């Protein structure tokens, strides 16, 4: 029996006896993905002519998506560190799921880049045939490939351990990968993603050395929030808690720390902008408190609200954490939108007048299609792969 046949048999066996609701869920995701990705094929053939991006606002929803999804991948590394670095065995049931979430997030980020660039086939030559070592885009995209490889290796090792087929060497490698992934993700992946924007001295809102730090803290908050959210939703679907109440409490404490750092940076970021006397600073503040007030409120009220929930032990329950993690993810998405959009909406010349950008259906549809496709992939993989909670 060939490998392919073996894989097909395994998939069939894994899906045997699956609830009908699962297939309906998958079907809905496939339809959304099909419709959305159809839009990206049109964009590939005709260019981004139908989008609302312009020479004044060259980066739209896809680059916001890149910054957001890269952040979401941080959860995987944190869970890996908790298990392998700090010996928190109670996190084991979510270990493989966290790695899968990390991988899906990285795929989403790479997908956003590929849908955004004008010539994705040529972009695939990076970093082998085309490269510029001074470009943060080059460094970041190369680091994403490294991160993807690292997470894949970690996934294989975790599966081996789960199946009980891991030798002591495999276990050591798995542990090492789990620990290495943290500095790699934080120092290389997230910091350099922040640096993509931080080095742009033409845009005052972006050009700050604090941006990489901000990307690290917000990545940790949103990434860990996503792990919590998936843990709760999986427990809810399976009608069985994946982790104990004590682990939920610990998850809440972890999220609390990440939120404190993010809230601190966000608050002082906005405070400094409000005091800015430069023309660009004033314009940025005007946009933040004008056209972008809803996203500013979602960002700030959301972060403070989530922080308030996880600060109290009595709210660090699955229900409380469900609210806190959802709000955190939405609040950080709002921050990413504010950062990327407003950074470009401040005109580089007075005389250009008011610059506008609101993503239209030609940008949003492929974006949603990509997310649906990866949610489908995640759903299938969690069925097919031997996860800890299924095996034990």
């Amino acid at each position, binding site marked *: 029996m060939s490998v392919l046949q073996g894989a097909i048999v395994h998939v069939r066996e894994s899906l045997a006896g699956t609830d009908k609701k699962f297939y309906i869920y998958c079907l809905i995701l496939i339809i959304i993905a099909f419709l959305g990705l159809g839009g990206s094929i049109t964009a590939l053939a005709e260019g981004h002519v139908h989008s609302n991006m312009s020479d004044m606002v060259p980066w739209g929803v896809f680059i916001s998506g890149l910054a957001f999804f890269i952040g979401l991948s941080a959860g995987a590394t944190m869970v890996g560190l908790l298990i392998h670095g700090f010996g928190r065995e109670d996190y084991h049931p979510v270990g493989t799921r966290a790695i899968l979430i990390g991988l899906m997030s990285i795929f989403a980020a790479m997908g956003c880049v590929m849908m955004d660039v004008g010539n994705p086939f*040529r972009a695939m030559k990076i970093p082998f045939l085309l490269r510029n070592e001074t470009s943060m885009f080059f460094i970041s995209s190369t680091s994403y490939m490294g991160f993807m490889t690292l997470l894949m290796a970690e996934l294989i090792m975790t599966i081996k351990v789960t199946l009980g087929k891991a030798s002591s060497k495999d276990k050591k490698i798995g542990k090492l990968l789990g620990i290495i992934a943290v500095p790699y993700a934080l120092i290389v992946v997230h910091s350099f993603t922040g640096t993509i924007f931080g080095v742009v001295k033409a845009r005052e809102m972006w050009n700050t050395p604090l941006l990489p730090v901000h990307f690290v803290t917000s990545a940790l908050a949103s990434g860990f929030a996503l792990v919590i959210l998936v843990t709760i939703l999986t427990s809810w679907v399976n009608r069985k808690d994946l982790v104990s109440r004590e682990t939920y409490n610990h998850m809440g404490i972890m999220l609390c720390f990440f939120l404190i750092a993010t809230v601190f940076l966000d608050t002082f970021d906005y405070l400094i902008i409000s005091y800015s006397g430069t023309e660009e600073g004033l314009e940025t503040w005007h946009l933040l408190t004008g056209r972008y007030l809803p996203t500013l409120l979602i960002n700030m009220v959301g972060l403070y609200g989530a922080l308030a929930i996880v600060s109290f032990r009595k709210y660090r329950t699955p229900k409380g954490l469900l609210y806190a993690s959802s709000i955190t993810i939405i609040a950080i998405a709002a921050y990413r939108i504010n950062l990327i959009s407003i950074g470009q909406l401040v005109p580089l010349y007075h005389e*250009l007048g008011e610059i506008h950008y609101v993503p239209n259906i030609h940008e949003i549809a492929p974006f949603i299609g990509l997310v649906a496709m990866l949610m489908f992939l995640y759903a299938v993989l969690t069925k097919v792969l031997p996860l800890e909670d299924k095996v034990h």
Partner: protein
Amino acid sequence: MIKLTAIAGAGAVMPRPEEAYGGMFEAIAEKISQGIKGTIGKEVLTPLPVKGAKFAMVIDLGLCIGCRRCSYACKLENNVPDSINPPYIMVFETRYRPGQIIGVNKPVESHINGNGLLYTKLRKDRMYMPVQCNHCDDPPCAKVCPTKATYKSPDGIVMMDYNKCIGCRYCMAACPYNARRFNWSKPEILSDKVNPLVPVRTDGVVEKCTFCVHRTRRGRTTRCVEACPNRARTFGNLNDPNSAISKLLSSERYFRLKVGLNTGPQIWYLTSKKEKPMRWYKPVPISPDIRGLKQ
């Protein structure tokens, strides 16, 4: 996506599927081939950099009458399609008289009333300011380009290699002068209007002013300099002390845009007042539908 191609009588005539999708598949196949081969259309050889030269341009704001002939000539010379709007050279009409204090509390209000780019009438009491690629000494666009599609030539020209551009638009986000243009759609230029010395671009790549490299490296001046009816523009070699540009810069007051960013822009603006014979020239109209700007 199926497109409605014509409406006949009471019913809509829809194209056959192979017609509707054929163009799309061809376009994607073309993109794949461009990605693999790395070349776009007919290769046009660019002359080699001029040894020992440092090209720059002086624009005399005292002489600029805002007629936009430079912008229009540049567009024709460099095969810039209509879909690229504004063209490489934007001409601003300044609304403030010298010495007037702009309200520092709400500078935003000045943006709301209209667009300094879209004026209709030449006025002697206004200043006109053409802006374009500044061919910086330390170009942020070249630093951030992930593929080295943008690079600084030894003779000072910031160049584009369209065969390397992946269309990530990082250079556009990084350029402080808003000098770069992206081909959001496939550029269409009538074949009899194509300048064979300049490569025709495709959709998905960024383009910009090249100081008319096909002319200047062959000893000629840029097309915008030739087209200016009031000789407001001077192009030349800064390393040559006897060049017109060097003499102008040693004798007149000048400024450069956003020098605080330390990019070393090589468009120098002269500021002394001069008599402008404006009544002889009518402005070349520009299309008002600029993407992203509120009209």
